[in-house]
């Protein structure tokens, strides 16, 4: 599987985690990533309001020629954005697994402060092992 990048947004729309898993991606500055996350948070909120269907959860997939972005929102409002190749199958399974890793290695870490940027070495390690297994 080819996963390009993963982002995690807290419930206020702040970027708390960003990591690339593929070579040759367009490099953004950390400030740009923050703006991107904030913008997406707003767009997500708008899409859930203007949806003609009642009770819509908002934007879930964004497809383009070069990538496919999947947004997975947890019940508490944390969002996982996964950027993958356009025809990546089973991306919802990947989302769930990343969420599981987050629940294990971030939320069960007593040194992590909730809603703050994630700096957990064990989370990095396990995410890397899952999304980029050694060839």
């Amino acid at each position: 599987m080819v996963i390009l990048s993963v982002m995690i947004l807290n419930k206020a729309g702040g970027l708390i985690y960003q990591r690339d898993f593929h070579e040759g991606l367009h490099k953004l500055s950390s400030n740009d990533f923050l703006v991107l996350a904030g913008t997406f948070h707003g767009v997500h909120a708008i899409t859930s309001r203007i949806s003609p269907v009642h009770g819509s959860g908002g934007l879930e997939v964004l497809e383009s020629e070069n990538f496919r972005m999947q947004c997975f929102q947890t019940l508490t409002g944390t969002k996982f954005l996964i950027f993958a190749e356009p025809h990546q199958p089973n991306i919802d399974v990947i989302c769930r697994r990343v969420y599981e890793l987050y629940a294990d290695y971030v939320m069960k870490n007593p040194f992590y402060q909730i809603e703050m940027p994630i700096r957990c070495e064990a989370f990095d390690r396990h995410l890397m092992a899952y999304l980029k297994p050694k060839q």
Partner: protein
Amino acid sequence: MSLQPPTSPFVPFSPNPALQPGTPSSTTPLSIAQKPPPVSSASLRYASTRRSIYDRNLNRTQRAELSKASFAFLFGEMIQYAQKRVSGIQDLEKKLNIQGYSIGQRLLELLLFREGRSAKRETRILGILQFIAQTVYRHLFNKPADGLERSHDKDDEYMLIDHEPVVNTYISVPKEISLLNCAAFVAGIIEAVLDGSLFPARVTAHSTPTDQYPGRTVYLIKFEESVLEREAMLAGGKP
């Protein structure tokens, strides 16, 4: 530290001793009209069978397992609780060590009780270390310890190796306090087992990461001199 007499009568698991029927009190008996409100079922801490964990046979929960996630949350809270009350890493490790120590004291008693007639009191250093690496470790973590070594340069130091301590599974220590190893809690348990078997020692946990095992932890066991003297005597008594 001086022992203080208990200030209140010890009534286990009773949130409000005054409401317990049959508890003598110096106040005048209440009239029937002023009956105390019935204790709601929410405040009762007994199971519906009125049997608590203390009523069970000690051998019954021998193979019982508990959820790793709930332990992780509990242990996380213990660390956060301790962290609020300390000034440095060493203080925090000491606090965790003390928390583990009280568990180790009880655990040794329980394990020896469960071994029944085959239980024996270890008198040699190797014997007690094997007991910890095998019996204690199996009971706590369902696996034996990954290694037991003797220090090359110091006679009184032994090393118990764990490639991935269960208590540290979900913990990532921040860089600024990278010297901290929360397995100090387990070190406290080991220390209590050693102390309880009359092998007074200091046990500390140290992180020694390798590429294969990033969470590798070494428990450094430093025995007191009296232990080594006795060991030398026991070894000399043999042909």
